[in-house]
């Protein structure tokens, strides 16, 4: 019963997160929606599967949940950093201080 409730909650959060992935205007805001899908949707559903398939599936599903919690911030950080370095600006940006700082650091070398 608790497992089914957790799985339904995770499916609803994943649906809301994918709607956000459709509607957000920008790479840096879409990363937020991707994190909602990964942690709030996927990990909660995997915990529900942990409780549902008790004797033979619990350890493997819990391992996958821990792995997703560890690697999701790593992947989204790397892809956002690559997007900034390859020159994609956020929408309606006013002033970019990081670009100025990286330029001055490059001059010092």
């Amino acid at each position: 019963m608790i497992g089914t409730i957790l799985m339904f909650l995770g499916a609803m959060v994943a649906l809301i997160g994918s709607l956000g992935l459709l509607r957000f205007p920008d790479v840096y805001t879409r990363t937020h929606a991707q994190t909602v899908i990964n942690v709030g949707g996927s990990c909660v559903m995997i915990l529900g599967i942990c409780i549902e398939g008790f004797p033979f599936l619990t350890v493997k599903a819990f391992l996958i949940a821990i792995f997703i919690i560890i690697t999701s911030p790593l992947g989204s950080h790397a892809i956002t950093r690559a997007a900034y370095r390859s020159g994609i600006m956020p929408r309606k940006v006013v002033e970019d201080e990081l670009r100025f700082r990286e330029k001055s650091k490059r001059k010092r070398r």
Partner: protein
Amino acid sequence: MELMIYLVLSSIGFCLFRAIKGPTIPDRVIALDATSSLIVVLILILSLKYPVFADVAIIYALLGFTGTLAIAKYLEGKGLGE
């Protein structure tokens, strides 16, 4: 369980729409990363009935993360070792 499968499939559909339409390459990579974690959940739901599929889910989670990191390194313009 069929209700869960349909909900996860509909959110996979939205993510794939963004992956097809997305204007830049990091958009597509983010959408494919979310899609891969949802596919892991789908395989685990199937493995409630057929318990052989759990190992497939573990391997799929590992490979999706590695692909995301490889594409990020490629976009940044450096080699894979740095």
